[in-house]
């Protein structure tokens, strides 16, 4: 049963997407039913997989695409099903399912010729994305994982660029793909090194033999993989694509840039944890990257004016928590805290983004200056939003509280037991981030839900609606269930999460800090009617809002030099490389013209040449003899 269920989670969305993309107009009207039904079936398969894995144990090898004989190694493109893949699969399938249902309303209809909604292509791409993510989490071979990884990348390119008639959307799509693909260069080189050195990319072999491989190889491979992780999981310094990716429709942000794709990087570290444990340097680097990213992104989130951008930066910050969680591991079974946070974040962040979509639907803008007073106009939505933000800030007893505390506890445990300065860095940064998270979550709640309703944007924005379709609100309640209750997993933890523990002193501090932040901000907002971000100096706020101006750095260091080089090459191809052939051609032509002069047609001329030639031969003969 486990085998079939795991295969179905990959194959069903793939089939749905192929049929959705390539069927003709006759089946277009069925695109919605088709997409929703496919995602529901996929969710069913994922749940069955969890059931099967818990009952019968993991299945290590499920044949999918056969064996590839490369000449140096035989790669088996197989799947596996274990607790890690099964639990993450449920999270992915659940979010995908909610997103599909939500999108039927959010993107329903045909649009206009100049702003088409392109719903069938959208639904099919979401299915393709789901399939690719399932491939990543079920892959038993690193090359197969890379396949899912990149197909996911191209799906996200398509989805971010969904409203491609907008310049900002098509630019964001290209940026997202190129930045993540830059990180993937590392993964590709790592795969190449493993094929040549270890002669295998089967994950079970790599995990079993991580200790036997040469230390330099393992370290290099782990660091290179980390490059891909930073790209996909939007960690510093490759995080620049994610805030821009908010140009995609809101359900896409919920699916990709919150719940699933960004989690893939952390998933990869969790999956290959023994390999990373064999390379200390890589885990230390991961911890440093995570520490920098979590605090930096949280501060950037504080300074944003756009609700989706607040959530985007908070995603970067929260994914850094996950990465910090797995980087604190000291044994192969220690992936628990990071994975736990991955699961709870998937629930509450998907919910937050979908609520942001609802708010946008009502207000016609994603800018928070156009929002406000949601508590009065739509109490239910504002309560849900509050629950989501509280889970994000880690308020007990919501899911985010438990998972965040397990990460902080893991850091504390590591710091106390020889984890060194990296563990302390994670712990301090994690505590500070918890405080800042409380502040920006409360700020977002205050700006969106409290105060008075504000006037809609002058240009009408994306269109103001009076009520929310039930397809959009229904799924919020579905996601609210795990957002509130996921902590119950701690009661009877599955093997995967057994390493997730909570130590009381750390938890107390990690809870008081965000609560203090929340209280302070709400006090400021309610009593003094002040936005906490206004307390930041103007220039500093602009610096934070722009994401530390790293886009400019990227532009100056990479984009502009490459473009200049390309122009030089294009000119050089004509002026230098082609000069040789053109010169030869001219020379031959000139030679031809010169020789034609000799063909005078006069007998005397020819005789002269003949005599001269005979003389030359004669002299040459005498000299050489």
């Amino acid at each position, binding site marked *: 049963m486990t085998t079939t269920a795991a295969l179905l989670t990959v194959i069903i969305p793939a089939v749905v997407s192929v049929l959705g993309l390539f069927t003709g107009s006759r089946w277009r009207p069925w695109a919605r039913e088709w997409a929703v039904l496919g995602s529901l079936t996929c969710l069913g398969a994922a749940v069955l997989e969890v059931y099967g894995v818990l009952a019968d144990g993991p299945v290590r090898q499920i044949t999918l695409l056969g064996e590839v004989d490369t000449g140096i190694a035989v790669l088996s493109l197989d799947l596996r099903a274990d607790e890690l893949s099964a639990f993450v699969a449920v999270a992915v399938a659940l979010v995908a399912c909610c997103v599909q249902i939500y999108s039927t309303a959010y993107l329903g209809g045909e649009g206009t010729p100049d702003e088409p909604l392109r719903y069938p292509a959208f639904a099919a791409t979401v299915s393709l994305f789901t399939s690719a993510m399932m491939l990543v989490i079920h892959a038993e071979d690193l*090359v197969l994982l890379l396949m899912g990884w990149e197909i996911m990348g191209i799906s996200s390119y398509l989805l971010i660029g969904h409203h491609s008639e907008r310049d900002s959307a098509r630019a964001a799509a290209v940026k997202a793909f190129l930045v993540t693909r830059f990180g993937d260069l590392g993964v590709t080189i790592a795969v190449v090194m493993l094929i040549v050195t270890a002669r295998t990319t089967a994950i079970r072999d790599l995990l079993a033999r991580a200790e036997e491989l040469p230390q330099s190889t393992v370290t290099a491979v782990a660091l290179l993989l980390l490059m891909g992780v930073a790209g996909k999981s939007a960690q510093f310094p490759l995080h620049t694509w994610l805030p821009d990716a908010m140009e995609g429709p809101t359900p896409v942000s919920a699916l990709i840039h919150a719940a699933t794709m960004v989690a893939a990087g952390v998933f990869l570290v969790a999956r290959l944890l023994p390999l990373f444990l064999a390379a200390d340097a890589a885990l230390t680097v991961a911890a440093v990257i995570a520490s920098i990213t979590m605090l930096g992104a949280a501060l950037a989130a504080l300074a944003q004016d756009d609700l989706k951008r607040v959530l985007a930066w908070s995603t970067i910050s929260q994914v850094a928590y996950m990465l910090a969680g797995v980087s604190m591991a000291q044994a192969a079974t220690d992936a628990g805290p990071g994975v736990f946070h991955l699961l709870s974040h998937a629930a509450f962040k998907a919910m937050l983004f979908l609520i942001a979509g609802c708010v946008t639907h009502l207000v016609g803008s994603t800018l928070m200056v156009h929002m406000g007073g949601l508590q009065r106009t739509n109490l239910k939505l504002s309560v849900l939003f509050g629950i989501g933000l509280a889970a994000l800030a880690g308020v007990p007893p919501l899911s985010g509280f438990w998972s965040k505390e397990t990460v902080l506890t893991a850091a504390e445990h590591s710091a106390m037991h020889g984890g060194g300065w990296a563990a302390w860095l994670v712990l301090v940064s994690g505590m500070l981030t918890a405080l800042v998270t409380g502040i920006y979550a409360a700020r977002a709640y205050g700006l969106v839900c409290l105060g008075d309703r504000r006037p809609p944007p002058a240009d009408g924005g994306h269109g103001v609606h009076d009520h929310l379709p039930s397809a959009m609100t229904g799924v919020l309640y579905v996601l609210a269930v795990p957002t509130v209750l996921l902590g119950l997993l701690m009661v009877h933890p599955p093997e995967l999460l057994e390493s997730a523990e909570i130590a009381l002193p750390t938890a107390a501090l990690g809870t008081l800090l965000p609560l203090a932040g929340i209280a302070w901000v709400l006090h400021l907002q309610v009593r003094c009617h002040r936005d906490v971000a206004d307390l930041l100096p103007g220039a500093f706020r602009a610096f934070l809002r722009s994401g530390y101006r790293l886009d400019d750095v990227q532009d100056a260091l990479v984009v502009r030099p490459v473009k200049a080089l390309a122009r030089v090459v294009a000119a050089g191809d004509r002026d230098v490389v082609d000069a040789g052939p053109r010169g030869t051609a001219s020379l031959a032509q000139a030679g031809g013209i010169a020789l034609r002069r000799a063909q005078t047609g006069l007998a005397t001329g020819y005789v002269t040449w003949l005599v001269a030639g005979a003389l030359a031969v004669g002299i040459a003969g005498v000299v050489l003899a």
Partner: protein
Amino acid sequence: MNVLLPAMIGLPLAVALLLLLVRGISDGAAVRIATGTAAVNLVLAVVASVQAAPFDRSGPGLEVDASWIPALGVRAHLGMDGISTPLVLLTALMGLLVTAHALRVRPSAGRLPGLMACFLAVEGGALATFTSLDLVLFYIAFEVVLVPMWFVIALWGDDKQPPRPRPRSTPLPGGQAARTDAAWRFMLFTAVGSAIMLLGLLLVALQTGTTDLVVLADGAGAGMSHETQVLAASLIVLGLAVKAPMFPLHTWLPPAHTIAPTGGSMLLAAVLLKMGTYGLVRIALPVAPEGFETIAPALGILGMAGAVWGGLACLVERDLKRLIAFSSVAHMGFVLVGVASMTPEGLQGALFVNIAHGLITGLLFLVVGSLKDRHHTADLHVLGTGLRDRLPTMGWLLALGCFAGLGLPGLAGFWGELLAIVGTWGGEDALGATARPLAVIGVVSTLIASAYLLRVLWSIWHGPREERWRSDPDITDATAHEVALAAPLVVATVALGLLPWLLLDITGDAVRLLLGVGGVTP
């Protein structure tokens, strides 16, 4: 004697001759005859491939070995093994596609019987190249292809290309001058290349006393001193590198691709370029292995230089057909470095890129040719944005071609590049200290490929609808005919991407035999 291979080669050549000699064949009849011939030939090629299997034995299948020029000891020796079979199938498929393309789409200039005769002659000559097991026969078949291709460019090429003056660079010619330039360039480059290759082949024949490739491969350079091997390998590689094309000998390709009609571009990309790389694997490497090993680092360096150079040139190129031509230079760089690594996986990768590039670039030229037929331009800036909304089917085909071209895993382009890089990384025996840097450059060049192909999609696929074509009635989405032509290429691209063993199992043992590292996998 098995007649399958001679029939497969002879049929298109005979029909081509017929189309040229018989007067008064109408355009429609000529295309139908040619398409029928190509279809029969595809069936023959499939049957031949099935009969040539299994590929794990030493020596070719379906061998034909008849005396031909006894005075020179030259024999008509044909056969198919795991290295030639995929290329034979690709050639036969492309032959059918380019002739069937003319059923509905007429080139802008010239009459069709001649064009069809040229296409069939190219097909026949290429099939002969891919199956010949004799140096002289190989050379003749190689040459047979050049002349009809020259006619295709010179007579049926686009003569309305606008000239491109450039402020700080040599301008590109336009109109009739561009066509003449492209045709002559093609002829001169490839003829000079062939002449150099001939010198190398003659050197081998004189030193070893045989022109039989099976004997020569078995001897693995026996009978030639090290210096002779180096000289022979250099001459043969240089000659074939012009055709591949290898940087910096590639400047004939962009004009040829730009000017050639759609079918001509498809044949150029999918068949002619492959003859060069096939020659490297079939002749240069096995006949003079020591010599080849000596020049391997140079070949690898130039291959990767081409990958980077071609990719960078694509980043600023405006003409879509020229851009795809430069991307061919980049992709062929992977083939060159894969062969130069002299490892089984590198060679496997090279042969895989060969096929994948043929399918993907064939698809891209088909789509871009269709766009050019409708808009009368392939200039990215003139074509304008919003293809996705204007012509959805065409747009998605273009997007798929671009995704495959950037080496997306799951599509055919990925495996060949990965294996070529694996081979390069581990190819220190042949490449020496350059092995790992070249592998890293190869990986980086895939990022450049992503950048330029996404730039193409950014410029014409995404974006708001271009206003200038809004009311043009000629501009319609892909016809059923065009979709039918693209379908086999799309299916093959996806199939090879997901199930790479379809191809690797055919080439695997042949490659191991060629490198002398044993036949069947242990």
